[in-house]
């Protein structure tokens, strides 16, 4: 299977573990990720907060590059990237004048169809059953709280993904990997996202609520598929402890890390040793007896 790939800026920096694990998982799945050549930033929440036209034009450049490269499907693992790329497509489709204006600004054609996939769409297209067949180290005994956050599921009419209040697609993947999803209440609550630098206290409060609910429901770790969710839950966890005088040490895994692991990669090759909250220990010995 061959599929286009839009890593996005975070995967080259603070989410290098996400990028590493996707590359490793894809390799073990037998998927060829074709990077959009010379891709640029999608503008994230900065563009849509300050300028509407820009919030469409920045993703549009990448869509145009993907089309020029002949890609009909592109995986955008970062939830903010996939959300912005899809939003641009939906708005351009609904407003041909906007489309023409953006084509002029970008200087490239937007004619054609390219389907933008988030990580879970990608696994779905690949086939959850096919993935399950390739598992060599089932993650038996691992209890994960699947956390979707905001941008994978909202706005529902734009992203058209799963149930916005009670999504289940990540649970299906986790189950296919041999792990056990826990039932909990914060899977679509906001972590504070981009407020992290300017409003750290708000983020600490939101992250604390998420951590506590996952812990109360017996999770060994939270499973995410968004760089900003990971950053807030993992990197900012110690700040939560400092703010509230608590001692959380809850590992935060990217779904792709657990995929790579279950498909046979070492925790290091899956990027799990790069977290701020130690996460290797809990998963290192899982499935070591191997699949029959």
């Amino acid at each position, binding site marked *: 299977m061959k599929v286009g790939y839009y890593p996005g*800026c*975070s995967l*080259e*920096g*603070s*989410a*290098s*573990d996400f990028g590493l694990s996707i590359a490793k998982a894809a390799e073990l799945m037998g998927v060829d990720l074709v990077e959009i050549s*010379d*891709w*640029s*930033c999608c*503008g*994230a*929440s*900065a*563009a*849509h*907060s*300050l*300028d*509407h*036209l*820009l919030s469409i*034009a*920045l993703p549009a*450049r990448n869509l145009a590059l993907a089309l020029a490269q002949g890609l009909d499907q592109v995986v955008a693992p970062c939830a903010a990237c996939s959300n912005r790329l899809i939003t641009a497509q939906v708005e351009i489709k609904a407003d041909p004048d906007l489309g023409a204006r953006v084509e002029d*600004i*970008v*200087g490239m054609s937007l004619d054609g169809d390219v389907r933008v996939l988030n990580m879970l769409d990608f696994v779905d297209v690949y086939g959850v059953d096919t993935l399950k067949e390739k598992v060599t180290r089932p993650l038996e005994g691992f209890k994960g709280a699947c956390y979707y956050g*905001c*941008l994978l599921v*909202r*706005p*529902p009419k734009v992203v058209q993904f799963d149930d*916005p*209040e009670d999504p289940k697609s990540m649970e299906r993947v986790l189950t296919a990997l041999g792990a056990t999803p826990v039932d909990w209440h914060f899977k*679509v*609550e*906001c972590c*504070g*996202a*981009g*407020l992290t*630098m*300017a*409003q750290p206290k*708000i983020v600490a409060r*939101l992250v604390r609520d998420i951590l506590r609910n996952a812990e109360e429901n017996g999770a060994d770790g939270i499973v995410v598929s968004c760089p900003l969710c990971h950053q807030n839950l993992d*990197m900012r966890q110690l700040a939560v402890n400092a703010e509230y005088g608590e001692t959380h040490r809850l590992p935060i895994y990217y779904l792709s890390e657990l995929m790579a692991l279950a498909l046979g990669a070492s925790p290091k090759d899956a990027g799990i*040793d*790069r*977290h*701020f909250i130690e996460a290797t220990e809990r998963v290192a010995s899982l499935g070591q007896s191997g699949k029959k």
Partner: protein
Amino acid sequence: MREITGRACRDLAREIHEHSGLQVEECYQCGKCTAGCPVADEMDIPPNVVVRLCQLGQRDRVLGSKTIWVCAACQTCMTRCPQEFDIAKLMDALRQISHREGRVNPEAAGMAHFYEAFLDVTRRFGRLSEVGLTALYKMKRFPNEVMNDVFLAPGLMSRGKLHLVPKGIKGASSVRKIIDRCMKESHR
């Protein structure tokens, strides 16, 4: 409502409609947006009241509110709105107008500075450099607290999560042109 209210109401409702296609009259004030907003406690005006003030033409109050910058754009409000009114898009529109007119609430200026720094760095390199963003934001925001998040740097570096020199891209100049042109067109 347009028939029974004054000129200011009509003007603001029309301005918002022209800016982003929204009809603020659609809101009937059930308050569900505020009930589900994860950051409502931190706002000076609750989300449903922001919509009400838009209906009432209170332009200065909404554009100068902290609320529009505290909003994390999580989209929970619009997802649950029984009228399917896109309140998250309204927040975007108000942020854009407020920023353009230099009316950002001083207590909430940090978010505006963060977004500006984000776009400045992207304009320069074509991609976002997190180091560049942090440094530029801190310089804009707290010239004397530039070092605040520096304690994270060694941890990021040792984990292979920090690159001091951003990777530029070939298309950086086309990204710069896109940003400059959009800003110019929107400010006309």
